[in-house]
């Protein structure tokens, strides 16, 4: 699948944003985080900013963005529509939560309830995003049991690392949060490795034989319908060379998992300004790493239409 930047950025940014939002909603509402104005402003701002930027980015990928409102109508059948509904719906509790915290300076009571609702909505939204990919049977790498947990884990992971960076920045970092980040990053790494392992061994029942109805033997593409690349090939025929793939997987692992882990572990040991800097660096590295991971998520996904083109 073509790794369009708008979509790569969208899923990465909203994943992190919803993760952060959910964590803030729960932790602030339950009093684990003080109702500090700046922390609230930066925290909810960052979460909603990432979400909003991601959504805008995905809208930029639309052919007719002015009609985007229509996407809320088909929630009964379409995970994309559900995602649209959920993402917008999330803004309601999230907005109340942010208003309560930032403008009213409180995170208890109805604000806490709003925070919980925002967290639930954020999780639901991430689920809908994941389900968009899970539901696509033509793409076996996505249509798997690894995809939805992956979205949730990565959302939690990137959200937590962001949260940690924030808390550290405000001087209220905690080893529990740090430990959570480390555990989630380890989980994310493990999940990614498992996913790759699964995908690399995937035996897809759909072949050039079933695609053409020509049973037995091998079916080789002789000529394409058009000699130049068309929409299908540009959108779904993306290929990444094996050696690039290996290198990119290494880069993704280094940036998204290994480096953040090292930085976070170092943050345990170091005093505040250093811990804060390392935590921020961990978040930045992980975000960059997740962009690479998400790029690979698309680039390595093989759509059945490529079978028609001998790819």
């Amino acid at each position, binding site marked *: 699948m073509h790794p369009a930047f708008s979509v790569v950025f969208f899923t990465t940014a909203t994943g992190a944003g919803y993760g952060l939002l959910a964590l803030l909603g729960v932790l602030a509402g339950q009093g684990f985080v003080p109702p500090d104005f700046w922390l609230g402003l930066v925290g909810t701002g960052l979460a909603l900013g990432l979400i909003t930027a991601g959504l805008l980015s995905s809208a930029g990928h639309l052919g007719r963005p002015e009609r985007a409102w229509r996407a809320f109508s088909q929630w009964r059948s379409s995970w*994309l529509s559900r995602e649209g509904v959920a993402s917008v719906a999330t803004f309601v509790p999230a907005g109340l939560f942010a208003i309560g915290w930032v403008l009213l300076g409180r995170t208890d009571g109805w604000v806490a309830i709003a925070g919980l609702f925002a967290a639930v909505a954020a999780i639901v939204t991430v689920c809908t995003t994941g389900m968009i990919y899970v539901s696509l049977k033509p793409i076996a790498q996505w249509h798997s049991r690894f995809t939805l947990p992956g979205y949730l884990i990565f959302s939690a992971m990137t959200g937590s690392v962001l949260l940690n960076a924030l808390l550290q920045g405000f001087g209220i970092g905690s080893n529990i949060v740090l430990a959570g980040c480390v555990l989630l990053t380890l989980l994310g790494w493990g999940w990614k490795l498992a996913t790759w392992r699964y995908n690399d061994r995937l035996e897809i029942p759909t072949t*050039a034989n*079933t695609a053409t109805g020509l049973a037995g033997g091998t079916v080789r593409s*002789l000529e394409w319908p058009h000699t130049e690349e068309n929409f*299908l090939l540009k959108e779904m025929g993306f290929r990444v060379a094996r050696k690039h793939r290996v290198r990119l997987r290494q880069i993704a692992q280094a940036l998204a998992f290994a480096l953040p882990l090292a930085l976070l572990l170092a943050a345990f040991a170091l005093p505040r300004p250093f811990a804060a800097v390392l935590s921020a660096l961990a978040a930045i590295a992980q975000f960059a790493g997740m962009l690479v991971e998400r790029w690979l998520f698309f680039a390595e996904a093989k759509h059945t239409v490529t079978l028609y083109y001998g790819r």
Partner: protein
Amino acid sequence: MTCIPAQTDKKLGLVIDLDTCVGCQACVTACKEWNTGGHMAPLTDIDPYGGDVDGVWFNRVHSYEHITEMGGRTVNFPRSCLHCEQPACVTVCPTGASYKRASDGIVLVDEDKCIGCKLCSWACPYGAREFDTDVGVMKKCTLCVDRIYNDNLVGEDRVPACVAACPTSARHFGDLGDPASAVSQLVASRGGVDLMPELGYQPTNKYLPPRAHTTRAASVPAPALEPVRAEGGFLGWVDRMLSN
């Protein structure tokens, strides 16, 4: 709208005979010319005279080499929307632009509702969806919905443009939901198949596989030729034949 009708009154579709298709592209351009002025007009061509030419086509013909232990065969393979009974391209559509008609089973796009998210093209395993980058919406085969019921065409022309044009008679059209229809019987008699049946889309269009001919073995039950056994050999035989 994007919920699939539980049942359609008819299952209109195409039957494509891979045993007969010579890959001449007649269906391809007949489709293009009808539809570029038809229901989903235009079928935009980007850079039509340049190096990055990329147009919208509802019907594309591939060719393959099918190699089995019986030998090799070249197969021409027209590919277009299969008007599936379980069209995920419809259910994934967030706006209701994609829909399957309850009356005849045709899968259509309502362009006015399409936001151009392209998700339907991801959901279609067959590559039947064609994005018009200029208009910003998804387009696709309409099964010539503006021909098959068109009162402004004489009756005999109310078939899809590709079926009308096909010079080898490799394309057929009808109600595949009616087991008594000519197309259903053709499919039954020739062992018509679904494409990618394992994905469960239940395509309406069927493909008739190349006949199980022999590679290069005799399909004519001809005994080997033996030299004439006549006195005087062949010339003697000629003489005798003429004398009879």
